[in-house]
């Protein structure tokens, strides 16, 4: 697969954006038309079952304003960090043939340092969901 070399594809300075605007307008018009038709033609019946949060789903109990456990936050942080890592790997991957083995080893070092971090959080139990596996 050849990388996209035509940088103007996404640039609003080039005429290529016209088709994008047209496409966007068409999509918006289509969505609006669908919503309008559904609203105009459709029959509305209110019922207790339909006004539930999840229709035909699990019946909710209690309030939704509960505090979420910390692991959610940890997972979000780790996701963010590996996301940033992915960005740099992406920039390298585009030219990895030109950079040769030197670039490859440099990237291996980059990833190994991050794997050390991953191993650390793994050993520390940052990836465990249950309280019983937590370190003392």
């Amino acid at each position, binding site marked *: 697969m050849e*990388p996209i*070399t035509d*940088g*103007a594809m*996404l*640039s*609003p*300075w*080039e*005429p290529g*954006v*016209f088709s994008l605007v047209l496409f966007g307008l068409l999509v918006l018009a289509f969505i609006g038309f669908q919503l309008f038709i559904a609203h105009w033609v459709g029959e509305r019946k209110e019922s207790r079952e339909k006004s539930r949060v999840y229709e035909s789903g699990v019946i909710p109990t209690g*309030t939704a*304003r*509960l*505090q*979420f456990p*910390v692991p*959610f*936050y*940890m997972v*979000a*942080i*780790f*996701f*963010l*960090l590996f*996301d*940033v*890592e992915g*960005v*740099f790997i992406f*920039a*390298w*991957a*585009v*030219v*990895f043939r*030109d*950079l040769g083995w030197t*670039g490859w080893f*440099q*990237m291996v*070092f*980059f*990833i190994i*340092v*991050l794997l*050390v*971090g*991953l191993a*650390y*959080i793994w050993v*520390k*139990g*940052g990836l465990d969901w249950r309280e019983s596996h*937590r*370190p003392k």
Partner: protein
Amino acid sequence: MEHLAYVAFGIYTLIILTGGLMAVLCRSMVRALVGLILTLFGVAGCYLLMAAPFIALMQILIYVGAVSILILFAIMLTRAPAGAEEAPYIFPWRSLAALAVAFLPLAVIGGMIRSGQVAPLVPPEEVPLAELGQTLIEPYLLAFELISVILTVAMAGAVILGFERRIGK
């Protein structure tokens, strides 16, 4: 086709300002976060206008995709207990102070425009992603490797902070 760029700039600015106002004025934290996400999308559009599509996509991937989720989790972690109401809207002093702070950058930028030379608007040239990757690996190798160290330190810090909280409980 340059007019289209002006139109796009107007749209992006409108998105940024709308999102910013939403983030400041909404009393519900989650709605304010939605405003912030809108602003981040607008900033991504501005990157696109500056002929930096890679940065624009990364802005969406990292800020819209990850940082906003992180903030959302932070809101849900520290959520006020059930039944508690959000703080009431206080108009006079806080709003004035916020306005003053908002106009400060305007004054600084305006002063700079008045006193100094403003660079003419030229269609920016895009730096290919391949060049960016090559620059990262070759001349800026040390900084590049240090990024991984920073990320590792951040991971360790997250673990330590997360566990300290749990032990203290």
